């Protein structure tokens, strides 16, 4: 008897279904739960209101990131509302025995950076967090996705949520990426092809040479943004790159447990002959450094291209015009040469050490453009330390940049790092929605290389021209 070929996604999903409800969702078991200060307080309140307790405190991890300042973290948080949320996270974690990496803790940082960094994220797991970019952890071959606060309450009180099983999509990118083309460009390219809603209802597997040859950090950047095409999440089959990354990290299995885990992890791949509901194929050679020109992440183009007409872009003409109007752009204008006021490098998309190495590779020996305000924000304290140890800080300082302390920062502008109305920011984060980086702010999403090129020239610049 032959076993029916299964996808990576099926293998992980099906092994976590506690109960199937007829014409309803699956009762889905969660291995790891991350919480942060913004979406958890109400969940704890709700739980207490019903007289419930945390069922498995050791499966939940708390970190403060969304609201935290990126300077003077040793001082009390000035904004009383933010301080209140941070306090609530600390109190709730303490009360239920959840490990908590608050402000000032050497392990503190953005939830999707610290999870993998400390070996909490492992292949084959199911991982959720009240944050849509939980999809980041899919880079390890985990099923990881964002949930709402009611669901946070469900996981705390029962370690399960109710989920209908999504449909399956595979995106293959084959060939070799050209010079100066980063994982961020790959994912922005895919989203520009599929649109911001193109994968809604699906869980995506990224496959093909480009992802096989990518580092773990690059894979995280890609999976991070799978939500920006509407997907529930994205994942990549674990391989030697994955295992090498995990080995020796603090919470990773050791010794015998490691060998056992490894044997299991090696089975986590899509079998030959397994089918997907839909499949897309792209060629690495078609990908340029990307930049967005509009107000959703699907509105991206190769940096040397002109802004498309609404006919070419597709969708509703009035929504398209509203978007360009907000950005202060016109159809058919080039993006190259546009003035840039702010540059942000950081976030759970591009706030890891490789991103700062890339940024430094262009900045080295150059100077920050005078009119540009730059926020250089590491994803975690561990990344911050690497930046110092590797001499990247010296390069940045020499070029006139200042390093800030870790947190989400200008990615969602809940703290003081806000881009003023009407100003243009080249940002390595993941969303260019209206006002995302501050009311009236105008965001151009791009890779760390494009951000660096903009930071030193003060205008949108093709980074390939600055690569030695």
């Amino acid at each position, binding site marked *: 008897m032959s076993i029916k070929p299964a996808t990576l996604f099926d293998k992980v999903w099906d092994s976590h279904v506690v109960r199937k409800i007829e014409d309803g969702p699956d009762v889905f078991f969660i291995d790891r739960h991350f919480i942060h200060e913004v979406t958890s307080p109400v969940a704890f309140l709700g739980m207490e209101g019903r007289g419930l307790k945390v069922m498995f405190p050791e499966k939940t991890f708390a970190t403060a990131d969304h609201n935290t300042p990126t300077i003077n973290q040793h001082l009390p948080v000035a904004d009383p509302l933010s301080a209140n949320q941070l306090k609530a996270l600390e109190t709730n974690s303490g009360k239920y025995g959840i490990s908590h990496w608050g402000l000032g803790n050497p392990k503190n940082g953005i939830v999707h950076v610290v999870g993998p960094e400390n070996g909490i994220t492992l292949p084959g797991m199911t991982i959720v967090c009240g944050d849509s970019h939980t999809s980041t952890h899919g880079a390890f071959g985990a099923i990881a996705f964002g949930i709402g606060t009611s669901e946070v*309450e469900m996981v705390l009180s029962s370690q399960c949520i109710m989920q209908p099983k999504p449909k399956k999509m595979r995106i293959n990118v084959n060939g070799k990426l050209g010079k100066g083309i980063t994982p961020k460009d790959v994912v922005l390219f895919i989203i520009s092809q599929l649109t911001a809603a193109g994968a809604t209802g699906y869980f995506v597997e990224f496959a093909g040479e480009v992802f096989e040859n990518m580092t773990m950090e690059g894979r995280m950047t890609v999976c991070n943004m799978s939500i920006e095409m509407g997907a529930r999440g994205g994942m990549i089959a674990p391989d030697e790159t994955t295992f090498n990354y995990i080995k020796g990290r603090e919470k990773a299995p050791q010794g015998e447990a490691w060998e056992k885990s490894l044997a299991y992890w090696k089975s986590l791949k899509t079998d030959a002959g397994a089918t997907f509901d839909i499949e897309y194929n792209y060629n690495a050679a078609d990908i340029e450094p990307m930049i967005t020109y509009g107000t959703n992440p699907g509105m991206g183009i190769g940096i040397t291209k002109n802004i498309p007409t609404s006919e070419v872009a597709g969708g509703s003409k009035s929504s398209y015009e509203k978007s360009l109007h907000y950005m202060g752009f016109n159809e058919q204008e080039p993006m190259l040469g546009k003035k840039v006021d702010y540059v942000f490098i950081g976030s759970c998309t591009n706030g890891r050490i490789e991103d700062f190495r890339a940024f430094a590779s262009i900045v080295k020996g150059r100077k920050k453009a005078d009119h540009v305000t730059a926020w250089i924000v590491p994803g975690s304290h561990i990344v911050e330390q690497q930046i110092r140890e590797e001499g990247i800080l010296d390069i940045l300082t020499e070029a006139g940049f200042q390093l800030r302390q870790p947190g989400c920062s200008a990615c969602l502008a809940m703290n003081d790092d806000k881009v003023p109305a009407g100003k243009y920011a080249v940002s390595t984060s993941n969303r260019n929605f209206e006002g995302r980086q501050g009311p009236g702010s105008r965001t151009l999403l791009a890779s760390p290389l494009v951000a660096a090129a903009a930071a030193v020239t003060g205008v949108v610049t093709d980074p390939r021209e600055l690569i030695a």
Partner: protein
Amino acid sequence: MPIENVDTDQIIPARFLKATERKGFGDNLFRDWRYESDNTPKKDFVLNNPIYSGKILVGGKNFGSGSSREHAAWAIYDYGFRCVVSSFFADIFKNNSLNVGILPVTVSPAFLDKIFTAIEADPKAELVVDLSAQSITIAATGESESFDINSYKKHNLMNGYDDIDYLQAMKEEIKQFADKSIY
């Protein structure tokens, strides 16, 4: 609101997510579309036009895209809406809505156009959503369409149960499952 891709940052901007309690979010629903920076209401925004009223919010395609913040659904609920109609919803938003007691109704693009046409013709046009029959009807013309909702969620919404109740009732089964987990 015939706008496509209404994202959660528009529904409730991040700077209003600082509360530790679940109330008062309706005041900041669509904050930056509703108000000028000096807090005067923007005249041309639909919610500021008293001629439009009711418990059903009709939006363009890909409604609720973006972040997982349930605050978006709370804001819509708190403002007084109990139902959102669109031709396409973002996944997380749809789940969150159901969890807070808002019914997301997905209609065909053609039917959505008809609704917008009816509202344009008469801002007081009535829409009738019948959950038990799973139908949505434009009262003036009698045009109607049926919508999908799984029977589990429908049962919950109609009876005021939620997922947490369901999960609490099966804790023993969950515990046995957890005992076998390698993580």
